[in-house]
C-alpha cells in the first residue's frame, strides 16, 4: 500500500519537479518584469528619480506629442511591410527547401541557423557599406552607367529599414513556413494530381491552404520582431526611418524618463490592438453584408 501511494505521489510530484523550476524562473524573470514595466508607465519622474505617483500623464504626453504618434504608426507600418515582404520572398525558398533540393536541405538549414545565431549588429552595420553613397549598390549602378555619381537616396529611409529587417529576419520567416510545408502529406498532393489537377491548381488549392498556419506564424513573428527592432533604424534609418524603439531606447538611456518610455511601448501595443480589433470588426461587417 505504501509503495502504491509512493508511486502515485511520484507521479503527481514528478511533473512539478521537472516543470516547476522553469515555470518559476519564467514567472519571476519574464512575467513579473513585464508587469513591473507596465506599472512604470503609470508612474512619474521627479528630479531624475522615478516616483510612484499614479497618473496617466505619460500616455497623454505620448499621444499629444507631435513626434511619438508618427513613430508608432511608422513602426507598425514598417512591421507590416516587412512581414508581408518576408512571407512573399521566403515562401518560394521554403517551398524549394521542402519539395526540391532534398540533397542540400541540411546544408541550407544550417546556413539559415548560422545567420539566425550570429552577428546581428555587424550584419546590420555591413548594410551601410552596401547602401551608402559610396557603397556596393551605387558602385554597381555607376559601373553599369545607370547612375552618374554617388547618390545617397538608399540610406536613411524607412525602406532601407524594411530591406535590412527583411534580410535579418529571413531565417525566422523561413523555418515556420518550411515546417508547415514539410508536414503536408505527400499522398494529398498525389491524390490532387491523380484527380486531374495540374501543378498550379494543386498548389493553389492544396499546398498553399495547408501551409497557411506556417505563413500566419511567420507573419506574426516577423511583424513583432520588425516593429520592435531599434538597432536597424538606429544604423540605417536616419531621422526619416526612426522608429518608436529608438525613442524608447533614448528614454532608457540618455534622457532617463523611464515612465515615458514605458508608456510609449504600451501605447504602441494599444494602437496595434485597436487596429487589429478594427480590422477584425471590418471583416465581420463585410461578411455580414455578403450574407
Amino acid at each position, binding site marked *: 500500500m505504501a509503495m502504491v501511494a509512493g508511486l502515485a505521489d*511520484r507521479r503527481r510530484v*514528478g*511533473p512539478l*519537479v*521537472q*516543470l516547476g*523550476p*522553469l*515555470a518559476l*524562473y*519564467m514567472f519571476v*524573470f*519574464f512575467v513579473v*518584469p513585464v508587469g*513591473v*514595466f507596465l506599472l*512604470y508607465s503609470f508612474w512619474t519622474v521627479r528630479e531624475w528619480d522615478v516616483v510612484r505617483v499614479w497618473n496617466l500623464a505619460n500616455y497623454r504626453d505620448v499621444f499629444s506629442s507631435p513626434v511619438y504618434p508618427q513613430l508608432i504608426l511608422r513602426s507598425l507600418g514598417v512591421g507590416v511591410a516587412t512581414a508581408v515582404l518576408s512571407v512573399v520572398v521566403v515562401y518560394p525558398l521554403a*517551398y*524549394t*527547401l521542402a519539395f*526540391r*533540393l532534398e540533397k542540400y536541405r541540411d546544408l*541550407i*538549414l544550417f*546556413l539559415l*541557423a*548560422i545567420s539566425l*545565431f*550570429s*552577428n*546581428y*549588429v*555587424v550584419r*546590420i*552595420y*555591413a*548594410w551601410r*557599406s552596401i547602401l551608402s553613397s559610396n*557603397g*556596393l549598390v551605387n*558602385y554597381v549602378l555607376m559601373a553599369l552607367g545607370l547612375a552618374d555619381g554617388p547618390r545617397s537616396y538608399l540610406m536613411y529611409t524607412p525602406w532601407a529599414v524594411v530591406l535590412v529587417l527583411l*534580410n535579418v529576419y*529571413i531565417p525566422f520567416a523561413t523555418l515556420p513556413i*518550411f*515546417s508547415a510545408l514539410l508536414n503536408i502529406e505527400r499522398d494529398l498532393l498525389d491524390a490532387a494530381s491523380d484527380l*486531374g489537377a*495540374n*501543378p498550379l491548381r494543386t498548389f493553389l488549392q492544396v499546398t498553399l491552404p495547408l501551409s497557411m498556419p506556417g505563413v500566419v506564424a511567420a507573419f506574426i513573428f516577423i511583424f*513583432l*520582431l520588425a*516593429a*520592435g*527592432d531599434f538597432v536597424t533604424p538606429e*544604423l540605417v534609418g536616419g531621422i526619416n526611418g526612426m522608429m518608436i*524603439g529608438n525613442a524608447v531606447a533614448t528614454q*532608457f538611456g540618455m534622457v532617463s524618463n*523611464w515612465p515615458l*518610455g*514605458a508608456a510609449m*511601448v504600451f501605447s504602441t501595443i494599444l494602437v496595434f490592438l485597436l487596429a487589429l480589433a478594427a480590422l477584425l470588426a471590418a471583416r465581420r461587417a463585410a461578411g455580414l453584408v455578403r450574407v
Partner: protein
Amino acid sequence: MNGPVPQEVGRAVPATRVARVAGLRLRDVPLLEIYAALALLFLFLPVLMLVMLSFNSTVTGIFPLKGFTLKWYDQALHNQIIWPALQNSLIVAISTAVVSALLGTPAAFTLTRRSFRFKSLLRGLLVLPMSLPTLLVGISLLSFFATLSVTRSLLTVTIGHVVYCVPYMLLVVSARLAEFDFAIEEAARDLGATPFQAFRMVTFPLIRPTIIGGMLLIFAQSFDMFVITFFNIGAQSTLPMVIWSMVRLGINPSLNALGAMVMGFSILVLVVANRLGGVKLAG
C-alpha cells in the same frame, strides 16, 4: 526524320496535356532552385561584404576595393578592449547554456510525455520570449532590477539571456523526445532498473547529443546577443557591446575584421552543434 512526329502528336493531344508538356519544359529550367540560390545570396550579402572589406586596404571610401591586407586583423587583435570583453562574453554564454539546459531539459520531458490541463497554454507562455522584440524583454528586466535596487552586472545579463534562450532548449529537446522510443526505457524498468537508473543509463545517453547540441546553439546565440545585454549590463562589457561602440564611433576598418573573427568563431560552434546531429529547429 523524327521531326514531324512530335509535331503531329502535339497537335493531337488535348490542351491540358500540352500544358503539362510545357510545364515539363519549364521545369527543365530550375527556376525555384535559382530563386533559392539568389535568396541565400541576398541573405549572406552583408556577411560577404564584411569579409571582403576586412581585407580591403583603403580606409576612406569603400569602393572600388584597393588591395589585400591583414592589417585590420592585426589592429583588431591588438585592441586591448576586446580581451576582457571576450572573457565576459564567454562567461555569460557558458552560464546561459548551462542554466538553459538545466531548466529546459526536464521541462521538455514533462511537456512531451505528460498531458495536463492548460498544457498548450503553458507551453505557449514558456516559448513566448523568443518571439517577442528583445527590446521589450531587455527593458522589462531593467525596470524590474531597478525596482529591486539590484546592481546591473554579468549576472543580470545572464538572467536576461536565459529568458530569451530557454525556449530554444525546450523546442530542440521536445523535437528529439517526440521521436524517442520510450519502449527502451520501459524495457530497462522491466529488467529491474529504478526510474532514475533507467533514465541515467538508457534515456540520457541517447538524448545527450541533443542536449549538448542545444547548449552549443544557445551558447552561440548568447555570445551574439546585443539588445538584452545593452540594457542590463553594468560597468563591464561583452563583445557585442564593444562592436556596438565601434559602430557608433563610425567607420573603423578593424571593426570588419573583428566582426569576421567573431562570426568565424560562432560558425565553428554551430558546426560542432550540427555535427552532433541531434539538433533540429524545424521539421
